[in-house]
Every structure is written in structure tokens, then in C-alpha cells.
């Protein structure tokens, strides 16, 4: 019971969306709207080489020919893409901070509120061994532990910096997993992305610490379009964490990120996300539209990519972290918890495309819907003709809390190889009355009992998270479900 | 009868059997005992021809023929029978239908006439009576929803109707209570005959109270490391396998 009590305490100790403050920082913004000039402006601000500007313009031209997708099971009023800022940078950080001392103190205060230790001393003094890249609105403001990582040859920096310092790597891999023409939001991102993290792990290197990026949308009416690129060279290993928050605002803000992962022979990448963008209030006003494209190419033999996500935030989530299993014996995993409450909508899942021999994938998806929310698991498992001996196992469970929410499961399964084995199971149910009664009879309040049971329901996924995130994620489960019973 | 010489076998890249020698004459009952992971089940699968078990060295001859060259069903026709440690469930195929297909396949292989439905029913009923197996069990799908005891009784029934000359019993006692053990043990003992050899693979001595062996071998780390009479089994029960494991290591 000790652990249980602890969980309950944690749940109780955290108030409602605590990240909903606004930081008052002078920002350098591009004018509202989207056109070629804005893209040239962003590119110029970033001092980008010509090829990248060309690539952005190509993406923009393509985007103009595309239509916004309507197949996800989400509803939102049409987005006016001209009514948003595509570039917003904290002014003092315009020239890029040389050290943390140059970072705007207000900003540091922000990250402190978020619980992100940016000061290396603080980090070193503490137990955490995590290198952090913080992205504020569109710009990476600080990256810690660069030197320690450099010793191992690990590159961890803002992608804008990587464009300048490691142009060959960026040119080789950018858009190689998610091409600029991939889908409406990814194409938009390709045209206007502002910053994000870049990671390169050299051959045979076991990255000595967790790498982490915290994303924060601060300015109002600002879209955030970050782009993350992680390359794990042969035989290397890396674990990467991503966290996101935004202030409470009553307009909707667009977040359209792209994440590309490349794993070469024998490499593995573990990518964990705790997504806690502002979900809007209990009446469904405000909140982030989280339209994200995340994809991994398991290019090498025996490579492995594992996605773990805990999605509690955003008004609308639309994301399918996927794996293209190209290399023989490569492995893809997807562990997901998606919690929706109030008027939130989530349409999330994964795609596992099996191309190579003996590739295997595992999908564990847990959806929890409360309030008036709608949660959909949407996934594709595809066994191509050459995927001899491939395996997939999928388990997708939905839990409903309350009478007005919905939980949906839409898996697509396509198998073209007889030796490939696909297994899929899905269930939908509510929290069992006897479980709830049992907890309450033992003195636990109904709301805490729900959090407790939901955490148990999510356990298979939660235990995949790195320790630092697991505790935070557990608390989030409790907070996200506040007001869902009684 | 059965003559195994210097048998090496691997599963994937792991060598499990590392030079096993064993000879069983007609009518003899041998027991193979050994610690977990010694290669007991591997031996039974190699002898019955399961895919994935690769023989890298050595020979197995049975009644003068090279057993290793034969498909599983040919071995069954030749008289090799494996009672599985975990009998496989086959949904949708009734036990009766399965038995008839097996018996007639084997009879055909042996140049005997195949049973028609009526004769077969009579033939099976003689055996089911002895093993306390009801008609109801014959109607159900093979091993589906059977209790541990029912599964093992069904294995013995198959052994009875297929009339093998070499029966391999792989951990037949696992998952059985005392009563079930007795029924199975007596069922097997009733099937002892001068033409029929048996190889009883077991971790515990208790099954050997019911099926008394002529020879007992100890298998450790892929080799026979000791051979004796039934008293060796009793000794092992007392002292465990520690000595052998060390010797093998």
C-alpha cells in the first residue's frame, strides 16, 4: 500500500494545469501570415544556406496545392493560416546565448517553474543526468551538457546550429524519413520550421546520458513548428525525452512538428514524450492543436526504435509515431497512453511498415476518455511481400469514464506475406464497479481511486518511460482526469 | 533396435546435445533423468523429427534404418511415437477424426488395411474403456479444453491405437496429480510388450514407481553421464543432480 499512498499523495499535491502561466518577454516576431517572404525572412534570420531555403520554398509551393486532411476523427473550426505568427523569438536571445548567463532571467525563471533544470551546476548537483535543449516558442534558448557530450562525439544542439556546424549530416538526413511532400502539416512544417533539436550519435557510442528537449509555446497567436532530427549511427544507443507545455490562452494555437529518426545497423533509439500542451478549459475554449508527424526509419539490420508517449494535453492531438522497418531483424515498438478529458480530442496511433526479413513490432496503446472527450486509436500494420518471418503484436485497450465520452479503435492491417504473423487484440470497457468499490471501501476517494486504477491500466506503457518522466507522467494521469467523476 | 551414436544437435546457434550415446533393445524400458536444460526434450524432438532441431554430428539408427533421414510421419509409420510434454491443442478438429486419420495413415504405411468408420469405432472403444475415456472426449476438438490429466490420457490412448515399437514419453508426469499419474502409469505399463521399447524422459522419480525401468540414464549437459538400474533413480531422488551438473561443468 505504501506505493499506492505515494501515488495518491502525488496526485493530490499537483494542482490543475500548473504550466498555464505566461512569461513576459519581449519577442522578436515576423509579421502575421504566411507567404514566400515570411519563409525568406525565417531563413535569413537563421542565416541558412541556399539549399535549405530552396527546400523550404519547394515545400511551400507544394503545400499550396494540398488540402487539409479530414479523415481523422476530430472536429475543429477551419484554421486561418494567415492569422498566425510563424516566427517568434525571445529578443534577448536573438543572437544566441553564449552561455546560460546570457539567457534572459525571465526565461530561466520560466523553465524553473516548469521544473526543468537548465543550470548545469544545478543539474550536476542533483541526481539527474540529463542533457536539456530548451525550445521557447520558435527558438532553442539553451542546451546543457554540450561539452560532456562532445567528448563522446555526440552532437546535441539546436537544428539551426547544426545547419551551420554540421551541414553535411543535416543535408543527408533532413527530409529523408519524412519528405517535404509527406502530408499537409509536415509540408507546412518543412516550409516554416524554426528550430528543434539535432542529435547525432557516432558509431558504437552509447550516449552517456538521457537527452531531453523541452518545448514551450509562449507568445500568443504563434504557431510552433519545430523539427527534430536524430541519427543513431551503427551500433550506437540513445534515449531521448521530449516534454511540452504552453500557457493558458483562450485562442487555439497550432503546433505542427516533425520528428525524424534514423537508426543504422545495430543502433537503437528510445524516444519518449510526455505531451502536456494546454488542453483548453473545461468548456473547450482554447488549447493547442497538436498536429505532429513523427517517423523513424530502422534502416540498418538489427536496429531498433521504441516510441513511448503519454499524451494528456492539447485540445486536439493528431499524431502517429511510426516505424519503417527496413533492415533485417529490425524492431519497432510503440507504447502509448492517451488521456482525454473535457472537450479534448485525440486521434493517435502508429504505423508499422515491415519491409525487411524477421522484422518485429509491438504496439501497446491505452486510451482513456473522460468528460465529453473523444479518443481514437488509429494504426496501420503492413507486412510487405519480402517481410519473411515478420511479427506484429498489437494490444489496444480503451477505458471510458463517464457517459458522454467516446473511445474508438480503427486499426488497419495489411498482410502480404504468409510467413508473417500478425496478432491484434482490442478491448473497450469502463472501470469495473467492483474495483472502484474495493478501493473506496479501503478509504480511497473516488477520484483518487480512478487515478489509481487508470495508472494500473497504463502500467505496461508507463514502465517503458525513463524514471524521471514516469513520476511526472503518473501525476499527470491524476491531474488530467480531475473532475471526471462525481 | 534404437542405436544413437555420438549425437550432436543444436537449436539455433546453441548446441544442446553434445555427443550422446544410447542403445535400447526390443522390449526394454529405459528412463532418462536429468536436470532442467540437460537436453531431455531436445532428444525427444530430434528422435521424432521436429523442425528447428539440427543434427550436426552422429547417427541414429532404428531397426537398421537411418531415422534422421525420415519425415516425422514416416517415423511414426516406422513405429516411433512421442507422447508430448505439452500436447498441442487443435481447434476445430475432432479427436475421433484425428485418431482415425492417424491410425489409417500409419496402417497404410505398414501395409495394413484401413479401418472403415464402424470398425474404427469398435477398435477405439476397446482402448477408451481401459483408459477411462468417455465418448464425449472423442467428440471434442483435439486437446482443446482438456484438463492436464485428460491430455495425458489422450496421449496414452494415441499410443495404444498407433501401436508403436518405440515410445518416447516426454515428461509425461508433468502437471498430473497422484490419481491421474496412476491411471497414466498403469495405462503405459499395460502397453509394455517384448516388441515394444520405451524411453521415459522425466525429471522426477515418481513416474518410475508406475513404469518400472530396466535401465536408468542420467543426462547432463547434452551427454549421458551415468547409467544404472532402477535404484539409480531412487538415489537421484535423494541426492539431486548437483554432482552431475558440476561434473558436466
Amino acid at each position, binding site marked *: 500500500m505504501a506505493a499506492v499512498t505515494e501515488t495518491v499523495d502525488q496526485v493530490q499535491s499537483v494542482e490543475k494545469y500548473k504550466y498555464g502561466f505566461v512569461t513576459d518577454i519581449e519577442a522578436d516576431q515576423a509579421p502575421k501570415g504566411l507567404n514566400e517572404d515570411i519563409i525568406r525572412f525565417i531563413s535569413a534570420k537563421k542565416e541558412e544556406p541556399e539549399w535549405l531555403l530552396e527546400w523550404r520554398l519547394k515545400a511551400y509551393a507544394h503545400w499550396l496545392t494540398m488540402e487539409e486532411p479530414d479523415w481523422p476523427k476530430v472536429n475543429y473550426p477551419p484554421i486561418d493560416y494567415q492569422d498566425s505568427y510563424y516566427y517568434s523569438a525571445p529578443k534577448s536571445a536573438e543572437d544566441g546565448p553564449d552561455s546560460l548567463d546570457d539567457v534572459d532571467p525571465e526565461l530561466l525563471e520560466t523553465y524553473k517553474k516548469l521544473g526543468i533544470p537548465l543550470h548545469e551546476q544545478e543539474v550536476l548537483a542533483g541526481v539527474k543526468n540529463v542533457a536539456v535543449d530548451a525550445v521557447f516558442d520558435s527558438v532553442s534558448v539553451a542546451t546543457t551538457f554540450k561539452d560532456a557530450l562532445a567528448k563522446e562525439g555526440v552532437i546535441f544542439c539546436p537544428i539551426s546550429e547544426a545547419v551551420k556546424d554540421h551541414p553535411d549530416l543535416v543535408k543527408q538526413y533532413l527530409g529523408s524519413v519524412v519528405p517535404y511532400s509527406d502530408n499537409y502539416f509536415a509540408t507546412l512544417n518543412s516550409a516554416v520550421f524554426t528550430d528543434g533539436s539535432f542529435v547525432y550519435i557516432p558509431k558504437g557510442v552509447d550516449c552517456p546520458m538521457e537527452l531531453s528537449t523541452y518545448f514551450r509555446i509562449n507568445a500568443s497567436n504563434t504557431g510552433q513548428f519545430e523539427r527534430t532530427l536524430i541519427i543513431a549511427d551503427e551500433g550506437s544507443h540513445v534515449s531521448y525525452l521530449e516534454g511540452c507545455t504552453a500557457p493558458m490562452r483562450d485562442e487555439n494555437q497550432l503546433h505542427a512538428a516533425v520528428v525524424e529518426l534514423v537508426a543504422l545497423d545495430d543502433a537503437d533509439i528510445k524516444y519518449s514524450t510526455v505531451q502536456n500542451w494546454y488542453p483548453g478549459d473545461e468548456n473547450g475554449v482554447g488549447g493547442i492543436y497538436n498536429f505532429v508527424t513523427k517517423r523513424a526509419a530502422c534502416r540498418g539490420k538489427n536496429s531498433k526504435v521504441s516510441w513511448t508517449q503519454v499524451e494528456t494535453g492539447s485540445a486536439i492531438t493528431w499524431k502517429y509515431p511510426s516505424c519503417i522497418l527496413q533492415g533485417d531483424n529490425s524492431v519497432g515498438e510503440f507504447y502509448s497512453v492517451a488521456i482525454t478529458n473535457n472537450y479534448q480530442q485525440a486521434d493517435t496511433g502508429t504505423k508499422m511498415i515491415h519491409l525487411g526479413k524477421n522484422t518485429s513490432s509491438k504496439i501497446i496503446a491505452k486510451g482513456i476518455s473522460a468528460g465529453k472527450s473523444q479518443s481514437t486509436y488509429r494504426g496501420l500494420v503492413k507486412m510487405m511481400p519480402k517481410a519473411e518471418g515478420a511479427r506484429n503484436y498489437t494490444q489496444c485497450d480503451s477505458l471510458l469514464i463517464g457517459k458522454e465520452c467516446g473511445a474508438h479503435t480503427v486499426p488497419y*492491417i495489411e498482410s502480404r506475406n*504468409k*510467413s508473417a504473423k500478425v496478432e491484434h487484440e482490442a478491448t473497450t470497457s469502463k472501470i469495473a464497479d467492483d474495483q472502484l468499490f474495493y478501493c473506496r471501501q479501503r478509504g480511497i476517494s473516488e477520484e483518487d481511486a480512478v487515478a489509481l486504477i487508470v495508472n494500473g491500466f497504463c502500467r505496461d506503457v508507463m514502465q517503458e518511460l525513463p524514471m524521471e518522466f514516469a513520476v511526472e507522467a503518473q501525476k499527470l494521469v491524476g491531474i488530467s482526469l480531475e473532475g471526471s467523476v462525481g | 533396435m534404437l542405436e544413437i551414436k555420438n549425437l550432436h544437435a543444436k537449436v539455433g546457434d546453441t548446441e544442446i546435445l553434445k555427443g550422446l550415446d544410447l542403445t535400447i533393445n526390443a522390449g526394454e524400458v529405459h528412463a532418462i533423468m536429468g536436470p532442467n536444460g540437460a537436453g531431455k526434450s531436445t532428444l525427444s524432438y530430434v528422435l521424432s523429427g*521436429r523442425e528447428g532441431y539440427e543434427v550436426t554430428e552422429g547417427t541414429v539408427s532404428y531397426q537398421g534404418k537411418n531415422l534422421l533421414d525420415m519425415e516425422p510421419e514416416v517415423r511414426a509409420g516406422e513405429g516411433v511415437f512421442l507422447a508430448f510434454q505439452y500436447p498441442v491443442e*487443435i481447434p*476445430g478438429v475432432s479427436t475421433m477424426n484425428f485418431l482415425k*486419420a492417424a491410425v489409417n495413415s500409419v496402417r497404410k504405411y505398414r501395409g495394413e488395411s484401413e479401418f472403415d468408420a464402424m470398425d474404427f469405432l469398435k477398435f477405439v472403444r476397446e482402448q477408451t474403456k481401459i483408459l477411462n475415456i468417455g465418448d464425449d472426449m472423442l467428440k471434442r476438438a483435439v486437446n482443446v479444453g482438456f484438463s492436464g490429466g485428460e491430455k495425458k490420457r489422450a496421449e496414452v490412448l494415441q499410443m495404444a491405437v*498407433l501401436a508403436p515399437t518405440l515410445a518416447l514419453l516426454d515428461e509425461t508426469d508433468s502437471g498430473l496429480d497422484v490419481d491421474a499419474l496412476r491411471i497414466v502409469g498403469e495405462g503405459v505399463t499395460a502397453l509394455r510388450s517384448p516388441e515394444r521399447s520405451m524411453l521415459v524422459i522425466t525429471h522426477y522419480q515418481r513416474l518410475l514407481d508406475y513404469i518400472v525401468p530396466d535401465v536408468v540414464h542420467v543426462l547432463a549437459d547434452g551427454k549421458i553421464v551415468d547409467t544404472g538400474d532402477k535404484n539409480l533413480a531412487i538415489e537421484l531422488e535423494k541426492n539431486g543432480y548437483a554432482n552431475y551438473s558440476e561434473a558436466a561443468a
Partner: protein
Amino acid sequence: MSNLSPISQAFVDQQGAVAFSASAPWLDQLRKAGLESFSADGLPTPKLEDWKYTNLNVLEKIDAGQRGDAAIDSTQLTWLPTELATHKLVFVNGRFQSELSAIGDLPKGVKVLALSEALASEPGLVEEHLGQIGGFEKAPVLALNTAFIEDGYVVMVDKAELATPIEIVFVSQAKNEAAHHPRNLIVAKNNARVTILERHIGIGEGGYLANSAFEVLVEDGAHVQHYRLLEDSADGINLSSVKAKLGKDATYDSFVLSMSGQLSRNEIHVSCEAGGAHTNLNGVYVGRGDQHIDNTTLIDHVVPNTSSKETYKGALDGKSRGVFQGAIIVADGADGTDGRMSNKTLLLSDDAEIDAKPQLEIYADDVQCAHGFTAGELDENSLFYLRSRGIPEAIARSMLVEGFLDEVVEEGVAEDYQDIFKTRIADWMNSG
């Protein structure tokens, strides 16, 4: 209408050329409504989510405008054990053939007849029920059927238990007629019991489209068992749409064995609209060559305390392609729903393919819903077990495949009729 594909336009033109009797203006209205709906978008294309995996462009080889009559040799129609008594109706190219049929005596409360006759003898009853279940929205194939309503079977059972099954044979004869659209009506009320054994066959060479539609109304404790065997000829295309509506404590059992034809799409929508309604949807599909077999089902749990159980299994050989799309929808407030769905496919060759979309859409919280899916080869353990008992590999394989498929027959078909379908499955295995 200008942007219709040539084949869709051909259907529209053909309908326009057919003169219908003015005796039933309501029926002409219904046909017109179907035609209008079909004319809007024409035949479905894979751009529509529901048709993602099935492309009807094979219809281009069919001459939609051709019509005619045919004679048939009755010996080709036998498919049931001779000792089984039935009330038999035979349709050739969608039209009732009284000389090939033998309806026999019917107990009180039971009506079994052709739609063309019912329109004359029971116009009120037909008008009351025909075209009442389900709209044409997202159902272009049903709309097409409706535009061509002409004949089909009508079964109405009220307060009666019909012990003798009704036998239906739909014959498609390609040489004489390229497309036909049988429209059928099944109504069971007040604890009625009825079993329908239905066979679709193609005779002769050449392609055709058999596009049948069924409206099934089961009310107040009635129980309908609807078992179908689809045996179309090699170039035949079989589309069918079942719309079933279940009332209080009503049960609709559907079993479909799809085993031939170039392309088949068998669509079943069941709506459970009163407490205690229950449906069992079961099916077996076997394919080889370049056959395409699509089973698409949708079960709507509209009110509290209804249940459904669904199992489809298939074995695909050659270059055949199977499609399974199953949806369970639980409406807001439909507490106490129990919905189970399972789809399993054996791929027997390197070129066979299965595409599946088992879907749950749930808007109520007090529910138990689940689906399962598997695809792969025969289980190696089972195969080894059989071979270790002396059974040759080829026989062991067919025993396992038949066992795998027969399970659905045992689950979905009343005991008296299981052998009809098991024999068909065994024949299919042996003919490979």
C-alpha cells in the same frame, strides 16, 4: 451526372429505358429515389473509406445494358441432401422461375413467395416493408439495387415456427443477362422462427453482376437464421447488401460461405434497436487464383442491453485477396452492450493477401466490446503434432485448415445444416 464513369452511366441509362408498371406508384418512387442517389456519385471507388480495399472497376467488363431470359437445367440446382424437405424458390438472373420452384404447403402465419407475385397478391404488405430499412447514404450499391427493384423473394412469418427450411437458389447465367438486382424481404414477428438456406451460383461462361439486397426485419422474440453459400462462376461478380433491423429480444443469425467468383463484396448492416436484440454474424471465405473476397459488416447498438458476436475466418491461396472490414458502433446511452468480433486468416501462399479493418466506435461507457485479429500461416506445432502421429503432411495441412474453418460453421450454423457447409469447405480443400 456528367462526371459519372461509363459503367455507372450505363446503369443509369439502362434504368431509364426500363418501363415499369404504373400499378404501384410508390414503388416507382422508391426506384427513382434509388436512381437519384446512385446518379449522384455512381459506383463507389477506393477513394471512399468504406471501399478502400475493393475496386469495382472489374465491372467495366460487364455489359450493363444487356437483358434477356434464360432456361436452366434443374439438375444443376441440387445442393442440399435429398432427404431434406424444403420450401424451394429458384430465381434465374433475378427472376422467379415457378417451374423450377416447389414452395409446397405453408403453415398459418407464413408467407413465402416471389416479390413479383407479392406485389400483385399482397401489395399492402410489401409497401409497408419494402425500402423501409436504411437509407442510401454511403450505400451506392444498395441504391443501384433499389433503382432496379423487380423481383426477389419475400418471407413473412408471424407467430409461427417454420420447421422446414426455406431454400433459395439464385442462378446467374452470364450468357443471357449481364446484371441483375434481386431485392428480398424477410419479416419475422412475434416469436416466429425461420431458417433460410440460400445459394448463389453462376452457370455458364462470361461475366455478370449479381447485386442482391436484403431487408430483414426481426421483431419481438423472433429468430431468423439466414445461411448463404456464394458459389459464383469464375468471372462472376457478387455484391450483396443486407440491412437488418432487430426489435425486442429478436435474433438474427447470418452465416456466409464465400468461395468463388471473381469478386464478391458481402455487406451486412445490423441495427439492434430494442433491448435483448442479438445478432450472430459469421462467415468463412476461401480464395485462390486472383479472387477478391470482401466481407464488410457494421453492427449498430442503438439502445441499452443488446449484444453481438461475430467471427469471420478465411483461408487464402494463390494470388487471392481477402478483405474484412468490421465495425461495432455503440451509441450514446447504449449501456450494457456486449460486442465481440474476431477475424482470423490463414495465408496459404506467398502471393495471397489479407487487408483488415476491425473497428470499434463507442459512445457509451458501460460496455464490453472487443475484437481480435490474426493472420499468418498454419501453426507449425499443430502440423508437427499431426505428422508425429503418422499423418502425411498434405493431409495434415488440409485437416488443420478444415478444422480452422469448420469451427465457424459449428459456431454459426444450426447443427442440422452444418454438414452442407463443411462438405463445401472440404471439397474446396480437395480441389486445390
